[in-house]
């Protein structure tokens, strides 16, 4: 395929317009083209620093292993949900059914996972498959049924939640401690490995054919089609991935809780969108990084911590949260715009 073996074309490059220009470095390009990601990481670092500061002010010590472990464990479900959401956001859509899928995954896990290794592995796989299946249904409604993502998933959200309550009518069931310690070990921050794994999955996704296709439809659907990309398949895949990750998020939620509750996933629909936005994902598709989204998820947890240690009237808490969200988005939009212009 490399064109070197087609000698018919002029081998003399001097005939052409322009001379070779020095290439800008890989890193320079990366920074310039991933402003959202960079800002998300900066925001995360700032949040961590601030957290350490208020933590110090309150306890005269710095956060340690326990704080790290619990922060990572508590953020894991959001990390997964937000990454799932980001696949759909890349295609200019939103997946509102993530909460419903998490509910169902959570309920199934609590009802079916028992203390034998076989059941743990088997049911984890089944739950992930069901998550992917629910995503597939969304994908088919959007890709083949040509419904708008927000509408199709609004309807399926209701359906998935209903099924979840049918599976687990009241909070209960149990998750074996072994399962918990494998997914979200309470004593050591082993869950960082999963964060790393998610980052690697994203890395691989970004470098896969289907990843390119999903990015492409977010860039420009018509161009993507003109380039021979099967846009329907890419779209269906993005929803399927979203469902798969939502399923995984449900498993982690069950594991942290050590039991199931068919309603605890609901809030993740909107928090996952928030994490995507804080992570620098462009809601109009085609741009964004999963690494940024992971950072965005951790920022939300950091904000919980910061407000915890800063003695704020709890009644006003949503006010501060809302304000923070607006300010963060406005600032990062402004900074991003400024950086791009000054390049």
């Amino acid at each position, binding site marked *: 395929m490399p064109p070197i073996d087609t000698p018919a074309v002029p081998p003399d490059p001097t005939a052409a317009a322009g001379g070779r220009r020095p290439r800008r470095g890989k890193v320079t390009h990366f920074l310039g083209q991933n402003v959202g990601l960079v800002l998300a990481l900066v925001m995360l670092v700032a949040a961590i620093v601030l957290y350490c500061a208020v933590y110090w002010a309150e306890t005269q010590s710095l956060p340690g292993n326990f704080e790290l472990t619990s922060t990572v464990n508590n953020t894991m479900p959001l990390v997964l949900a937000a990454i799932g959401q980001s696949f759909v956001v890349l295609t200019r859509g939103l997946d509102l059914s993530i909460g419903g899928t998490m509910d169902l995954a959570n309920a199934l896990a609590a009802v079916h996972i028992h203390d034998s290794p076989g059941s743990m592995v088997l049911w984890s796989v089944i739950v992930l498959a069901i998550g992917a299946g629910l995503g597939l249904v969304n994908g088919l409604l959007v890709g083949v049924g040509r419904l708008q993502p927000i509408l199709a998933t609004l309807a399926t959200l209701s359906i998935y939640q209903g099924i979840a309550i049918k599976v687990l009518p009241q909070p209960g069931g149990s998750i074996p401690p072994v399962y918990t310690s494998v997914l979200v070990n309470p004593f050591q921050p082993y869950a960082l490995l999963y964060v790393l794994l998610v980052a690697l999955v994203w890395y691989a996704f970004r470098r896969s054919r289907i990843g390119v296709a999903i990015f492409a439809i977010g860039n420009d659907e018509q161009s993507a089609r003109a380039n021979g990309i099967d846009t329907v398949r890419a779209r269906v895949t993005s929803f399927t991935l979203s469902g798969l990750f939502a399923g995984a998020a449900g498993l982690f939620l069950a594991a942290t809780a050590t039991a199931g509750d068919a309603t605890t996933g609901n809030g993740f629909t909107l928090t996952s969108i928030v994490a995507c936005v804080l992570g620098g994902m462009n809601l109009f598709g085609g741009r964004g990084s999963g690494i940024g989204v992971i950072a965005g998820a951790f920022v939300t947890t950091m904000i919980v911590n910061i407000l915890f240690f800063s003695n704020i009237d709890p009644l006003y808490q949503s006010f501060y949260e809302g304000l923070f969200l*607006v300010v963060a*988005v406005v600032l990062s*939009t402004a900074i991003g715009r400024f950086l791009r212009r000054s390049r």
Partner: protein
Amino acid sequence: MAKWNAALLQPLERAGLNRDRRRILYAFLAAILLFAVGEIVHPGFASPGSIGAIVMVASFVGLVAAGQTFVVLIGGIDLSVPWVLNGASILLVTSSLGQDDRAPWALLLTLGMGAAAGLVNGVAIAFLGVPAVVMTLAMNGIMEGLTLGLSGGLTCGACASYAPPVVADAVHGSLFGIPSALVLWLVVIALVSLLLSFTTFGRRTYATGNNPHASYLAGVNVRLITILLYVLSGLFAALAGILLVGFGGQASLGMGDPYLFQSIAAVVIGGVYMLGGRGHYLGVAAGAVTLVALVSVLLAMNMPDYGRNIIYGIVILLLLLLYGREEAED
């Protein structure tokens, strides 16, 4: 299939029912169908009293959905509805202290608050380029914090006040034998339809919703329109808050919670195009009735909660697929 569809659609088309008008028709048909189904599974469901009650309840959803319709017509969404509504209901009772003579000012203040919340949404969306989903979501949190904080969690001295009798009567009374909440809704339906279909503002709204860039180049003040539409959405959320206080007598926390999902669902069922530019409030009004009728049928059937969720979702999907099929025909 396509042919069969076309054969069916052509007479409708000839009768002046273009796609948008057909969608209104479908929304009404869906409501009628639900009443019929309800009557079968639960005799008495389609009695005049029952229909009246359902339509009355639908009017609350319909009012919030009016605001939602405005912003959806330009491809936006308003997620701040719940706490704007809550805030409005609390502001009304705390500022009126349940007294009729203070009611006019309290009403103005409350509507003003709703408009102000909408204004902030609109300005941030139109000028700062914050995505509507994010901005209105944040606004919901901001309003929640402010409402809870300022009223001390509804423990303030004035928080115990009742809706001024004039407001309560306006909701519970009746005019020419029609419940006055319903009369108000009919007036709102007429006004909103008039506003959207026969005014320059409405024309510019549809233009902006269809193509903001082209409208801008045609001299439409797209930002102003955007802001005004969010203001209207805030206003209607506040209006619904006022009516709910009148209906229930007092403000309570969490009053607005159910209205977000329902207002969006009503807009969807009413055939408004979520990406903007097409749809009528008449359809949304029918959508609100359909929605409440659906919920009521399921309640009447003693449907367990999970079943209600599932059927609810399936009905919306079916309607969407019906609309979508027509989309493909065009």
